């Protein structure tokens, strides 16, 4: 290759990268506006309740990103939300509204914990992957159940995924309160074996290798959607099921596959929490990661890589909110207010658009 050739190639690649950056920046304008808007209104709420918005946000920012500990906690909080966001968006691309990431995460965590506490004496390189696989399997099963109900009986996935989340919560709760309960007052299992633990990345913080897994999952999801035939078919079904069917793509098969993969992703998220953060299964360990994931996916523009940024934002609000609470006395509830505002700005119109496009609130029988 001549020098000119190389120069030309480099220029082409740079130009491509520049275009990509510009489009992704312009694509994220609505999300950016939403976040700014949410914080502005949040400031009004803070001022009205007698706190200084500047001080509050300042300590929040410092708490979330000010030091290694803060960054560690931000990323720790972001990890499970990123998994559930990916789970939501993958199903969404197939035209499905998976409200079951919460349950899939819980089951995934539970399966991982069972393998983690039971198979003692295995070497790390077998025990840890097995525990993670158990998490994948648990989530996948919890995605498969609503999928098969939809394919065979036509049950709407909004209802079945939502309900299966509660089943997951209460079934696991039973196990850690009775057969698998560790001695003591807390509803939890005994600690998992050290050989099943995901390594911690930063000292003092809870940040574990699960974070790396979540980034890998985001890249894998993007790859699956854009560069594989499965992703192509999933997207075709999501955008126009009739045309997909006409082209010989089985929409039922595609939907089952999408929900199973979606569940599996949420399942790894749960396994990551158990094996990396808590190191035992605790009843109700998820403070609603599944629901936050929906918001994060939508704020991330239903894009796996955008979801990384949105998940870190949500993680920062959570971890920064705690330091804000400690140093300025602003109640922790402001976190929920801020998150809700971001969701209102971004997600609500999108959810409505989507549901409308899908034929209205037919399953609620409102629009007859």
């Amino acid at each position, binding site marked *: 290759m001549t020098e000119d050739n190389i120069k030309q190639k480099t220029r082409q690649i740079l130009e491509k990268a520049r275009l990509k950056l510009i489009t992704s920046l312009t694509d994220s304008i609505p999300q950016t506006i939403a976040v700014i808007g949410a914080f502005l209104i949040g400031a009004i709420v803070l001022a009205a309740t007698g706190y200084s918005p500047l001080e509050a946000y300042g300590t929040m920012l410092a708490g979330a990103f000010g030091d290694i500990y803060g960054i560690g906690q931000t990323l720790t909080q972001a990890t499970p939300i990123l998994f559930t966001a990916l789970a939501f968006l993958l199903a969404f691309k197939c035209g499905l509204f998976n409200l079951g990431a919460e349950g899939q995460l819980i089951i995934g965590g539970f399966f991982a914990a069972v393998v983690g506490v039971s198979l003692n004496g295995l070497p790390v390189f077998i025990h840890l992957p097995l525990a993670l696989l158990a998490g994948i399997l648990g989530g996948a099963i919890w995605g498969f159940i609503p999928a098969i109900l939809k394919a065979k009986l036509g049950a709407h996935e909004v209802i079945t995924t939502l309900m299966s989340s509660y089943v997951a919560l209460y079934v696991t709760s039973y196990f850690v309160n009775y057969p698998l309960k560790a001695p003591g007052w807390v509803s939890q299992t005994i600690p998992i074996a050290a050989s099943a633990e995901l390594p911690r990345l930063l000292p003092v913080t809870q940040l574990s290798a699960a974070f790396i897994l979540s980034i890998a999952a985001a890249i894998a999801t993007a790859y699956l959607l854009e560069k*594989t035939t499965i992703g192509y078919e999933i997207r*075709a079904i999501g955008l126009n099921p009739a*045309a997909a069917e006409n*082209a*010989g*793509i089985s929409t039922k098969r595609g939907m089952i596959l999408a929900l199973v993969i979606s569940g599996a992703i949420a399942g790894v998220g749960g396994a990551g929490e158990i094996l990396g953060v808590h190191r035992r299964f605790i009843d109700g360990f998820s403070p609603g990661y599944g629901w936050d994931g929906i918001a994060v996916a939508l704020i991330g523009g239903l894009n796996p890589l955008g979801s990384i940024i949105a998940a870190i934002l949500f993680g920062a609000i959570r971890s920064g909110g705690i330091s804000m609470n400690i140093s300025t006395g602003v109640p922790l509830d402001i976190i929920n207010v801020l998150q809700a505002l971001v969701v209102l700005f971004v997600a609500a119109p999108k959810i409505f658009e989507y549901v409308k496009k899908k034929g209205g609130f037919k399953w609620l029988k409102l629009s007859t």
Partner: protein
Amino acid sequence: MSSAIKMVGITKSFSGTLANDGIDFDVKEGEVHSLLGENGAGKTVLMSILYGLYKPDQGKIFVKGKEAKIENPAKAISLGIGMVHQHFMLVPSLTVAENIVLGSEPEKYRFWLDSEKANEDVTELSRKYGLEVDPKTVVNTLPVGVQQRVEILKALFRRAEFLILDEPTSVLSPQEVVGLFKAIAALKQQGKSVVFISHKLKEVCAISDRITVLKRGRISGTVNKENIDMEELAKMMVGREIPVVPLQNPFLQEKVVLQAEGLKAFDKRKMLGLKSVTFKVHESEILGMAGIEGNGQSELIEVLMGLRKLDEGKILLNGKPITNASVHERIKSGFSIIPEDRQKTGLVLDFSVSDNLILGRQDQPPFAEKFYKLNLEKESELAQELIQEYSIQTPTKETPVRHLSGGTQQRVVVAREFSRQPKFIIASQPTRGLDIGAAEYVRRKLIEMRDKGCAILLISADLDEVLALSDRIAVIYEGKIVAVREHSKTNELEIGLLMTGAAND
């Protein structure tokens, strides 16, 4: 008799297509005036304008000599105009009487529905017009014919003097049609006017005082009862505009590619949509399927593609049975389809041109590689090739097809379907909604494919197109093939009469 309703110079277009083009139409008191025409001729649009559902771009409406601005159905109702739609607008869980009085319910102690009064009113009304119904029956338990009666009573309850019936017989059994005609006669006697919209020649001839024929948004003539001539009407309805190129097909072969035997299938309403359809398509042959829409064509296409379950019958491709093959298997063995509605079933509008071009082939080499990897370079190469070969006017191959014109979208479909070397092509309304140039292009391509050896089933409501392209013509009517003719041994008149059920083999 004077004209009670007069529509003058009505013009209405939808995104560039003229649905009504300067139409003059009038209804006299106490007459049955039919609007006859093929699907898409503009009948329903014209009447929807009269009923206030659409606003005309141009034109005026006079009711009893006074100009009327009809902005909405409420206004139309207040002027005494009632419309019974093709799809009923009844609340299924309410009783007959409740449905009829809905919106102007008789009240008792304010806000309480006076059911007794409602029942009495309805009974009286039904007796007056000879439209028998039981006011207390719940609507969803009634057969369609009776539901239609309820719709008519609903309009009469609102004091309609002009009743528009949109394709009222399309949902009825023959016996129910007789009942409807009796009811229409009774209405006429009471001095009501009826506009009867239909594409069924025989029915229109049986019931009308006057018939106005619409074709492609224009009036092709109005005929009085005394001068009805079925052949003349059929000609007015389907008359040709494209000059037909006499076809010589030197390639015609004896070899049968597709064979359909005794196909039976139910339609969406769970009625028999296809009643024993049998036909063959040979190599290098275009078999035209002429017929008015809704006579089983959609069911036939779905059954052939494997999208709808066949209740009886066999389908063979090159002698091999494929009756139970999936859509995927059919495509792999050489089926291609230009679907009737390219936007709904032919394309993924938010996919790029190149993504659309591999739809249906995405899981086959060279596009699919190991581990489900999609070969994007091969996809891009194919797109480049097809964009050139089929002159697809698109800014880039990454442009979503949503942004392309209808003609260009159709080129994308044609390019995709014809480039995978099909053995059998189903072309359903392949030129619908296209401008002349684009339509011509698609027709030429069809002939090109035929000359290459493809067996083509052309399904079109446009008789001119069927006549211009087909080597043989089959006529489908009410789910049956009523005749098959050689191109050289038939004419539009004969086919037109067969299509409308006015003639039979």
